[in-house]
């Protein structure tokens, strides 16, 4: 596929492209060699450091329970944040000023504050003013921080999802005599949820990534924190770090791929109204989100039918 940015390469351009490719490849190879050499110099490739990962105990005792906690916190945060987000998203669409404005303030406030601050605050708050046990507290604090932030992001997703529906839907509902609440419940929300699904899945990636903060800063025993206990036993610091990074990449890559699969499937669906809130739209709402389209020639984002550059 040729791009509109440049002409189809002729013989000279082809030669030049090959040259650039070779130079770029050499650069990448140099970088890879540097990393390999430095690790080798510090003896980090020693089999003894990597052997633990071939043993089932390393996984069952340290990494998998850690991963379990990561997923648990992420799932809890999503399950609690979603309905909260829906409430605020719908409140922001209210016809009444006194509902719309406070909802907007709350949403904008929590979107402006770093998740880490929310977690630190929740951790200390539970510590002083509630009876949450010191074992459970980090989980509570992490989930609270994630819920406050993500509910406000999801509020925007819900709002955008509802606004993305064709106007005719509301008008038709009114024409058959449905009340505002009924229109929202039985017409708009079900369709908006469909449109929102890809965006919600990609928000899950953001949540999974943010749980790591709780592991480092408030001692929540998620994956990154479990790595530390593991490193103390096996004395394998750098390798455990690399393995944990790969776990995160694989996990989030699966979620991202699922989101883009969902998005494409919804776009093709003939029965739906065609309104889909893609991962790309999410970047407007929450730049920390991960887009769903892969490759350079993918049909991911973009309007159907229109040609794009990438």
């Amino acid at each position, binding site marked *: 596929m040729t791009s509109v940015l440049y002409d189809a390469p002729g013989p000279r351009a082809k030669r030049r492209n090959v040259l650039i490719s070779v130079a770029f490849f050499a650069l990448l190879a140099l970088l890879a060699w540097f990393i390999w050499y430095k690790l080798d110099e*510090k003896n980090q490739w020693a089999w*003894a*450091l990597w052997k*633990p990962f071939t*043993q089932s*105990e*390393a996984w*069952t*005792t*340290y990494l998998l329970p850690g991963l379990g906690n990561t997923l648990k916190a992420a799932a*809890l945060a999503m399950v*609690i944040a*979603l*309905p*909260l987000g*829906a*409430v605020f998203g719908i409140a922001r669409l209210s016809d009444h000023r006194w509902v719309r404005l406070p909802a907007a303030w709350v949403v904008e406030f929590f979107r402006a504050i770093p998740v880490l601050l929310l977690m630190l605050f929740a951790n200390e708050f539970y*510590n002083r003013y509630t*009876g949450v*046990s*010191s*074992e*459970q507290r980090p989980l*509570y604090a992490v*989930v609270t921080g994630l819920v406050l932030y993500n509910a406000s992001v999801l509020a925007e997703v819900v709002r955008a999802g509802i606004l993305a529906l064709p106007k005719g839907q509301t008008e038709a509902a009114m024409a058959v005599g449905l009340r505002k609440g009924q229109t929202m*419940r039985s017409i708009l*929300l*079900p369709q908006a*949820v*469909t449109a929102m*699904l890809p965006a919600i899945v990609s928000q899950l990636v953001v949540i999974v990534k943010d749980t790591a903060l709780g592991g*480092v800063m408030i*001692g929540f*025993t998620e994956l990154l924190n479990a790595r*530390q*206990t593991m*490193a*103390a*036993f*096996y*004395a*394998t*610091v*750098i390798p455990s770090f690399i393995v944990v990074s790969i776990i995160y990449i694989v996990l989030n890559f699966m979620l991202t791929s699922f989101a883009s699969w*969902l998005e494409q*499937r*919804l776009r093709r*669906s003939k*029965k*739906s109204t065609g309104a889909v809130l893609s991962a790309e739209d999410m970047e407007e709402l929450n730049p920390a989100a991960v887009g769903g389209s892969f490759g350079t020639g993918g049909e991911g984002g973009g309007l159907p039918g229109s040609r794009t550059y990438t």
Partner: protein
Amino acid sequence: MKLRKVSAAAAAALVLSLTATACGGGDSDKDSAAGSGSGGGDKIKVGIKYDQPGLGLKEADGSFSGFDVDVATYVAKELGYDADQIEFVETKSADRENALARGDVKFIAATYSITDERKEKVDFAGPYLLAHQDLLIKSDSDISEATDLNGKNLCSVTGSTSAQNIKDEIAPKANLKEYGGYSECIAALQSGAVDAVTTDDSILAGFAAQEQYKGQFKLAGLKLSNENYGIGVKKGDTETVNKINAALEKMVSDKAWDKAVTDNFGPANYKNEPAPKIGVIVK
């Protein structure tokens, strides 16, 4: 299309939960307070460290090992709990006072130095071990005095008393790197990024004895401070303190203490101080 049904269900769930959010939020499976006195079939919760070889370490098979663990097991037995009735809980340094005050654990044996500041918040039984802040250095290093440290690169754990000691007294001009755990510091020492790792000699010895690091490091033997390890108990629980003190005395007299020392510090070649007298705190 299947997806439509799924999203319809999701929407229904959303609507349902909309009405239920007010009362929802967080499950409240509150653990019953740790072993509240009565022995018998109850469990006892004991706070230890999970990441300190030789003192408190979570092994690959899920069991726990180390001197603190052995002491805790002995004490628990004297309090009327068998080994299988003990539930070990990780108590990170910053969480120890809270875990006791809240009653999350019955007692804590986690390299817990007795200090006046901590005594305001918790009660201590013991001490059961006298350790000293020391330096772990490379085998070929020539650091032999605390004054050598100014201008050197040091590593310790964030918020630890050892880190504070360095900053305030021992070597204010030292370049201090702080990590969340000691294994990161040891890795930095191994690669040469820092010249010494500093904390209690008992902890350092455990790391130095690990297979991956054998022969690479040594203790400088500086005795920069006295750390009297005590067993932390909830403030005001004098009964438990007395029971634990009696247990510790018995542990020393029936040589179980010596055995725990040989088992845990022997491989590390750690020259420990003799068993401290209960209630005598070496300043």
